[in-house]
């Protein structure tokens, strides 16, 4: 019997393929027309913090060092009002086996795949997660396929993604490379069906729980080192897993008073599925092209219910610009002697600015770094931008227009975070929940879910629903 492998037929088999490839029956967690029991899913489909600590320590993941960035703190204080300029620390996640915090997510996913008898794992990612899955698969002796969106229609690839391809292949994985487009998911489904491998999605309960150790560790390290919790943890936000996992870990450490701030590179105006725009951006992750769609509709992910739900945890969401991040990446290298990849420095750039609003005795932590190398470094990324007609120059970052230019700040005092109104994101999320579930009135249970999923209150949710013409059942 031959299967119909047309786009429409494969996409319509999505649920069936996914159930086999993840092994979670998500329907048991459904609770209303919109909501589901998130905590129950995390508890029953995931692992406990202690289990994860064991899983990760077996493969040398986690327990990364905390480094105080004394020179960058001093630089920030030169720009800050008197008495301002919090101490800036960084958690050096590049020390993980695959060179980024993604090793934490991959460790759990691959462990779970092995335990459940899968022969291999597949991940759809152009990011560090691919390398992380390849690394973990190598350790566990599983086969590994990484599916990347890599090239435009002229077969010109982002240098950062080409490096990740190399790294995945170096770690023994097969890399399937595609041109731009959301139909990557179709190829991904076909591969899952063909191989019967595990879908090492970034968004499963165990993937997200893998990041909880980061938040937990961080709190413990500060208690040991400084005798107190940090005041702010700054987290680069793309798909929302880094924010969600870190915040959950902080809560598990009893550090719920720590402010959780998300940061993304502003790529507004660039369409993420556009062949033309693909090589006109210099960041392939940590940007608003993922950050906003995933925050305002998490269940767009490659699993039925996304375990990454950043609006549940964010206290503030700030944006920085490409040129500002390249500038800070360079400053980190020459002032701190730490050469780390640019995308992971999104949160560092935001922290450099936010520290200037905070008191000198306060602490702000940048919770990740990533490895750097050919392709994945300010030099190749800026020279690639220039080759693609992007105007790279010094100026005021406010002049930056994604896809047209990259403005390196004329002076570091010009590096300024801009707030993205979280209430606006929460409104969009509620609107998407109503529209995508096609509801005309809402139950009490679903209102309660929306309150939790937006970290708001009943009045906020009811007002948003009223604007959409949705009444209580």
């Amino acid at each position: 019997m031959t299967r119909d492998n047309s786009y429409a037929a494969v996409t319509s088999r999505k649920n069936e393929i996914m159930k086999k490839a993840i092994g979670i029956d998500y329907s048991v967690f459904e609770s209303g027309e919109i909501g589901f029991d998130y905590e129950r899913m995390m508890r029953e489909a995931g692992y406990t913090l202690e289990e994860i600590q064991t899983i990760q320590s077996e493969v040398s993941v986690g327990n990364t060092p905390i480094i105080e960035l004394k020179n960058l703190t001093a630089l920030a204080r030169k720009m800050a009002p008197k008495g301002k300029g919090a101490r800036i620390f960084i958690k050096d996640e590049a020390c993980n086996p695959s060179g980024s915090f993604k090793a934490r997510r991959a460790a759990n996913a691959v462990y779970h795949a092995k335990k459940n008898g899968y022969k291999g794992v597949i991940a759809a990612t152009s990011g560090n997660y691919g390398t992380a899955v390849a690394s973990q698969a190598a350790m566990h002796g599983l086969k590994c396929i990484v599916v990347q969106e890599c090239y435009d229609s002229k077969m010109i690839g982002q240098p950062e993604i080409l490096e990740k391809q190399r790294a995945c292949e170096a770690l023994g994985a097969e890399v399937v490379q595609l041109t731009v487009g959301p139909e990557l998911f179709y190829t991904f489904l076909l591969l899952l069906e063909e191989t019967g491998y595990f879908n090492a999605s970034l968004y499963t309960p165990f993937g997200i729980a893998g990041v909880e150790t980061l938040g937990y560790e961080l709190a413990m390290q500060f208690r040991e080192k400084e005798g107190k919790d940090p005041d702010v943890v700054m987290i680069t936000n793309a798909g929302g897993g880094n924010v969600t996992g870190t915040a959950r870990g902080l809560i598990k450490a009893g550090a719920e008073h720590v402010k959780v701030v998300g940061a993304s590179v502003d790529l507004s105006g660039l369409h993420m599925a556009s062949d033309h725009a693909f090589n006109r951006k210099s960041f392939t992750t940590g940007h608003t092209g993922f950050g906003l769609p995933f925050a305002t509709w998490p269940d767009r992910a490659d699993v039925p219910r996304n375990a990454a739900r950043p609006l549940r945890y964010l206290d503030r969401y700030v944006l920085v610009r490409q040129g500002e991040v390249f500038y800070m990446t360079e400053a980190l290298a020459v002032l701190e002697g730490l050469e780390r990849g640019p995308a992971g420095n999104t949160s560092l750039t935001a922290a450099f600015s936010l520290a200037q609003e905070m008191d000198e005795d306060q602490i702000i932590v940048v919770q990740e770094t990533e490895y750097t190398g050919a392709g994945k470094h300010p030099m190749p990324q800026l020279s690639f931008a220039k080759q693609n007609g992007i105007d790279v120059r010094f100026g005021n970052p406010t002049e930056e227009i994604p896809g047209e230019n990259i403005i390196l700040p004329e002076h570091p005092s010009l590096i300024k975070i801009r707030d993205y109104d979280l209430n606006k994101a929460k409104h969009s999320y509620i609107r998407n929940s109503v529209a995508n579930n096609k509801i005309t009135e809402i139950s009490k249970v679903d209102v309660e879910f929306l309150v939790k999923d937006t970290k708001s209150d009943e009045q906020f949710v009811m007002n948003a629903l009223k604007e959409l013409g949705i009444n209580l059942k």
Partner: protein
Amino acid sequence: MNAAKKGDWVQIHQIVLKPEERAPQVPDDTKQVPLELWVKGYALTEANLGEQVEIETTTGRKVKGELVAVNPRYTHSFGEFVPELLKVDRQVKEILFGGEK
């Protein structure tokens, strides 16, 4: 190299979706072009560049496609030198340690 022998490490290319088969939500510029795929493996037969060949990938999958490269090299690098970065280096040091030359 213009041809692959059986057992050579090669890269092949496929058209996954023709422009008219692309998903409805794809932006207009992307709809003009096909969805293309590249993957590497061992050639199972000999073939010239541009010819169809079957390969066996690292995971043991058998895949057919157009032969595009034999022993494909990695092409990414540190790119052209970007002198702007030197200016950043000097500036941050000057602000922080200025005077101690």
